[in-house]
């Protein structure tokens, strides 16, 4: 018996684009334990590789190198049976619930499909009970929503229905790729709350993909911040956001506008033009072109993760390498 639910080892994904290959993800490592269930946040700006991780875990794209293990088994080597199990155990919730629902079908249809695909019920009654139970878990009732068409529901309700659909299959992991980014702030809390409850009451872990640090701060356990396909900093979400150590993460946290008119941004930041043109660093630290604290050593060496605090707080930056700093 393995103690890990999901393990990603040295995962690299390169998109071939003629001469200019795009390294979307480089040597990425992640472990999610089986117990207790947890919400692991993958955060970063657009193009940082977040969705690439989601798509790899969901099997939509293939690794260039590295491996993904689920409960200790390599998911690319599974038998047909194991693959079916994997697809049941790992469910997905995406950004735009409109995109997932066919506008011509009622909500009922979304659930009927799941019951059919996973052969979950022997008769109509059993199926009805399962659907009702799943809806109740996300705070909805069948009589209110099942007969409705997607456009008759709010964005928050649609997204909770997607959570109910994922929950019904009784998965061990839900990959949630930007599930609240299209939902208005006043309705977001109900979705985040469902995620928290599924974790606590049903022992379902989440791979929570977002560009928004504040929701990760509110509900996340561990966080991994990506910058151009590499992990810049990781640790307990509140630790990392309260005391960011990597210069990029410091800039990022500092740039989130504070919802208080008396706490204003301090100073202006200037983006170097190279970065604006998205000339990706080919060697060395990916943040080198923008880093206010860069050293010569950073130019040609890719920093590993250094321990910078408690509870697994690590940052990939040479400022935390004693030898490099002694020489600098």
């Amino acid at each position, binding site marked *: 018996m393995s103690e890990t639910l999901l393990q990603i080892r040295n995962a690299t994904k390169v998109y071939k684009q003629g001469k200019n290959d795009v390294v979307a993800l480089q040597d990425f490592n992640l472990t999610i334990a089986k117990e207790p269930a947890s919400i692991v946040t993958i955060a970063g700006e*657009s193009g940082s590789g977040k969705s690439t991780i989601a798509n790899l875990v969901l099997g939509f794209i293939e690794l260039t190198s590295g491996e993904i293990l689920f409960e200790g088994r390599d998911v690319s080597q599974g038998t047909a049976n194991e693959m079916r199990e994997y697809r049941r155990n790992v469910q997905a919730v995406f950004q735009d619930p409109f995109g997932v629902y066919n506008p011509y079908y009622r909500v009922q249809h979304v659930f009927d499909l799941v019951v059919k695909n996973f052969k979950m019920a022997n008769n109509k009654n059993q199926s009805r009970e399962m659907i009702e139970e799943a809806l109740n878990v996300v705070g909805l009732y069948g009589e209110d929503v099942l007969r409705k068409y997607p456009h008759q529901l709010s964005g928050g309700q649609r997204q909770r229905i997607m959570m109910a659909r994922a929950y019904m299959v009784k998965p061990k992991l839900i990959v949630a790729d930007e599930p609240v980014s299209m939902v208005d702030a006043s309705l977001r809390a109900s979705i985040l709350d469902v995620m928290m409850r599924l974790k606590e009451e049903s022992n379902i872990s989440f791979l929570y993909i977002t560009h928004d640090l504040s929701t990760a*701060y509110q509900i996340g356990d561990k966080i991994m911040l990506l910058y151009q396909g590499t992990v810049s900093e990781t640790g307990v979400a509140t630790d990392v956001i309260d005391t960011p150590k990597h210069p990029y993460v410091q800039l990022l946290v500092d740039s989130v506008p504070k919802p208080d008119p008396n706490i204003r941004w301090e100073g202006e930041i200037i983006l170097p033009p190279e970065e604006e043109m998205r000339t990706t660093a080919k060697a060395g630290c990916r943040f080198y072109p923008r880093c206010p604290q860069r050293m010569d050593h950073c130019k040609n060496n890719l920093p590993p993760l250094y321990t910078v605090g408690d509870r697994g707080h690590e940052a990939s930056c040479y400022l935390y390498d004693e030898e490099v700093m002694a020489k600098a």
Partner: protein
Amino acid sequence: MSQPINNRSITETYENKDVVLDVKGLRVYYETPKGDVLAVDGIDFKLYEGETLGLVGESGCGKSTAAMGILQLITPPGRIVSGEVWLDSSNLLAMSEEELRQRRWTKLALIPQGAMNSLNPTMRISAQIRDVIETHEGRKRGDDIKERILELFKMVGLPGRIYDMYPHELSGGMKQRVCIAMAIALDPMVIIADESTSALDVVVQRVVAQTMLRVKEALGVSMIMIGHDMGLMAQMVNRIAVMYAGHIVEIAGVEELFYKPGHPYSQLLIESVPSLTERKPLKITEGITHDPRNPPPGCIFQLRCPFVMDECRSVEPPIVEIRPHQQVACHLYKEQEDGSVIDVRDIATNP
């Protein structure tokens, strides 16, 4: 590093300055087979000289429609049902298309939602800005126009070398700044920026937001900033108008709105701003909204309001000034004969 540009006193008020834009009773409806959608249903507000007014609200509440209505850019199935938009002592809504055309860009410039993605992909950046200038001012000598465009680039922090580039060669943040450069090209009195930083990553968003503030200060223009990110509003605006389902339910100074929101909907908006400093219990509210074709009589917010009373279901709440710089449309606030305002919840709890 230059001076912080956003450290101005925020209690600074603009209400004794001249009114540059006065919107009165604006209504814009969209025709659908099942009846009109009342996208903007009677909004009133003033924009004062030099101020930045935020217009906030959830997606679909009518912010962009209001902006398009003010500029008379509504096209079918939309139509302006009623209202007046006073700019520079003339009513835009009573003008001919030619008169309007002369005022757009020169007096009133709009940066539409998604503008950076609607730059012409086949035209060089410089040619697109040149087009805006020459359409209004006639043809110019090549050297003069180049100098002027480079000057605009400088104001918005763009490097001169993008002069001959095409939109696809620029990052999102740079394209957004090209749009700002176009908006200020003819030195307008008012700029309306619709979700101009929304699609950008947070660091780039900050750079663009700060560019806008700097340009605004330098030119002394007045600005309406449309958005839904309350954090960004706190950083950028002097006053905020809160919209809900086609209505403005509160207009207040940014401090009043953030520290003492008056309308129950504003309170909800402020409470649901996610915090990066404190892990707090999630505030869950239901999102039942009415059919936008068929709003209930009385208060527009009644279906979601935790304080709804009988009166709210039949009488539309009037605008009450609950304290200086803060106007709220809600029955919770009653103006007394002596001009003071009471909150009916205080009477209910302390009889």
